[in-house]
């Protein structure tokens, strides 16, 4: 019996080595929520950021919500005060963050005692195809709320995949010192180090701006936006809802797949500021990192339109303008009442835009 028990113990030890290894390499960083390691694999930011906020509940009271596209909104240029109270912003965005998850995040914050004063939330066509159920099968996106339901199950799922060799090598060689600044930005602001430089002379690789055609399906996510609005009204939270600027290739596909219908449903229940239109920024590739993510400069211009003085707003809109007819379209407030007019203008804008000429212009 002793021999048997000893051998079982040895066997269990050997088996557990693989799990210790997986937890140590921790491709998605869920076992190291306070020590984010930047490798080529994106960490599960939904989990890490939510956990960080709820465990530091007095540190932040204003949040940027949305997908990773919104991660380039500069926190420093967002309002510092609301109703006379200071605001401490945190960028709670992550890959394919969708309204349903954002709603859960917001509720988690409030339920855990975070005193949320203001929300800046951006959405776009991602809300039309990404969904919560699919995300719960993706290590990169499994939500914090699933962890709360069953922490043991949540962690065991992350013990399952054997880490890629390249990630393992990066983790072994990872230097905390070299990434101290990046790590600080991640925890202090929830975002990357901001760089507002845009070099229009810089040559761009246009292949990175070709959009993948997504499988769009009927979505109910506009109802989640309505739920967020109702929740914010109930909890006295100031909500600023905006759509993201989308690079023209991405924007056109989204429109073909019914983006305007989706926006109509949203406009039927909440007001929002629309940045999804053709503008100088969405037609020149240099303002985007690739087809999906706009640069911090664009984010900065958006904050000026949303929170700047009247003069700043006017200037920012003027800078974004593509032609004189559309001078107010970038960042225009959309309501149930004016949606149809806005939609007609957006359609006309697309009809008259000479895509081929633009492409040849920027095809360096």
């Amino acid at each position, binding site marked *: 019996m002793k021999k048997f028990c000893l051998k079982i113990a040895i066997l269990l030890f050997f*088996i557990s080595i693989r799990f210790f290894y997986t937890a140590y390499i921790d491709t998605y960083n869920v076992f190291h929520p306070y020590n984010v390691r930047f490798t080529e694999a994106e960490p599960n930011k939904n989990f890490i950021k939510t956990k960080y906020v709820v465990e530091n509940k007095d540190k932040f009271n204003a949040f940027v919500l949305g997908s990773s596209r919104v991660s380039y909104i500069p926190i420093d240029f967002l309002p510092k005060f609301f109703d006379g109270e200071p605001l401490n912003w945190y960028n709670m965005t992550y890959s394919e963050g969708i309204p349903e998850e954002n709603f859960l995040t917001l509720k988690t914050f409030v339920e855990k005692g975070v005193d949320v004063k203001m929300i800046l939330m951006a959405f776009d066509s991602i809300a039309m195809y990404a969904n919560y159920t699919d995300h719960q099968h993706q290590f990169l996106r499994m939500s914090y709320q699933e962890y709360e339901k069953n922490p043991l199950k949540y962690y065991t799922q992350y013990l399952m995949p*054997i880490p890629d060799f390249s990630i393992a090598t990066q983790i072994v060689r990872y230097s905390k010192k070299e990434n101290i600044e990046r790590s600080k930005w991640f925890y202090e602001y929830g975002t990357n180090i901001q760089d507002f430089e845009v070099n229009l002379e810089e040559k761009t690789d246009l292949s990175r701006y070709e959009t993948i055609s997504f499988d769009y399906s009927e979505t109910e996510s506009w109802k989640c936006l309505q739920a967020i609005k109702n929740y914010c009204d109930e909890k006295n939270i100031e909500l600023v809802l905006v759509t993201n600027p989308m690079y023209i290739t991405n924007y056109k596909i989204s429109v073909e797949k019914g983006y305007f219908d989706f926006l109509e449903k949203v406009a039927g229940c909440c007001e929002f500021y629309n940045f999804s239109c053709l503008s100088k920024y969405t037609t020149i590739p240099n303002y985007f990192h690739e087809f999906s993510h706009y640069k911090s400069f664009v984010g900065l211009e958006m904050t000026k339109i949303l929170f700047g003085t009247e003069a700043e707003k006017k200037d920012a809109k003027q800078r974004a303008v593509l032609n004189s007819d559309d001078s107010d379209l970038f960042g225009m407030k959309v309501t149930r009442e004016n949606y149809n007019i806005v939609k007609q203008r957006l359609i006309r804008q697309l009809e008259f835009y000479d895509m081929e000429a633009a492409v040849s212009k920027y095809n360096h």
Partner: protein
Amino acid sequence: MNFISLQFLLFFTIVCVLYYLIQHYCFREKLSQLLLLGASLCFYCFASIKFLPFLIFSFAVTFVFGHLVKKIKSLFIAAMIIDVLPLLFFKYVNFIISPFTSEKLPLILPLGISFITFQSLSYLADVRNGKIAVEKDPVSIFLFVSFFPVVSSGPIQRAENLIPQLKQKHLFEYNHATDGMKLFIWGLAKKVIIANSLASYVDEIYKIPSEAHGPALLLATFLYSFQIYCDFSGYSDMAIGVSKFLGFDVGKNFDHPYLSNSCGEFWKRWHISLSSWLRDYVYIPLGGSRVPVPRIYLNLIMTFLVSGIWHGAAWTFVVWGLIHGIYQCTGRLLKSINEKLPSALRIFITFCLISFAWIFFRVESLNDGLIIAKKIFCSPIEASKSLIELRPEIGTKAAVKLLFDLDVVDGYKQMSYIILKLLCFVFIDILSARKDGLSRINSMPVILRWIIYVIFLNVIVSNLLAESANSISTNFIYNNF
């Protein structure tokens, strides 16, 4: 309680510790039996406490009629009818009333009802025939019908094998324990690594057969043959392993069935405890082979019809049984021709015939079975026609992907992974047919053996975690019977 669950792991650890403490320090036959009986009842009630009355009924019938049949042999028919009544009621009443009403009675099949009933019947028949002495101890009988390692899906036990073991002292033996563990893990691997991944393709293709392509149905049918083999033999290995760990030998249930040279041989290697039961308690009492030839064929067909009906109350199972009956008759008729063929060809033909029969075992309705059979027979024409048409447009790779409906498993990569796992299993299965798998692994050098254990267990645990994350069921196919 599913063998593949943390509850079972905990339950079995506690039972083992208590069991061996009793065996080593205070052995009393009754105490040991009572512990096993308590464990068996817990195991049974874990499925649902509502099933307990059936188990008690089955025990009472076995015990009481065992004594009565010993004295009055003519009571055997009455005992048999009473013993089979719950099975008839729970399993077949909806099937029997289906021609008269579309409404079904909301009946839940008690765990292991078919296995328990057959075990009880074999005891009564053996007592009647004087093959075994009547068992006077009710605890032994109760334990015989409810012994937890085999209660849910066999192997079906004979009283002459199990009851004497229940009375023996089983001291902890290192070799028994490790062999039991190895068998359990091997069974677990078959279920978790092979059967479940095959199911991901087969289930999708068989869901709506009319929408699947012929080649896909053909592939799914062959894969199902392996799925059900790995699923059921995996379960059996786990049950045998658990019994072995406790010092019990519950017999073999599978012996490389797909290496059979004929359908007759297949049934000597597949679900051995059921086929030997049918041979001893249905085929031989009907006259077996000691009757005129036409009667032999009738007996064979009758026996396989019973087998089909035992598996489930549906016409699909009746057809499955009938097909096997016909295979047996044809096999007898063509025996001399079959024996002249090369062994590999005979194995292949047998495998194809068995796989064809599985179609009717797997489908939801006879109509689905006919659709699949028709599509499979037309699949070579469909495949060549479609390839000619589609290849210029979308290329060979995409055309093949389309014909085999590989999208249901995320394309080529996942399917190659499934096939690779299956090939590894087939290789090991062939190796273990030549020399018993346990002796083969036990004769390996220690370091190599341990490397295999660690890698193998890691793969199993990873698969288990993945399946649990994706909510893939770990239920066994034969738990439904």
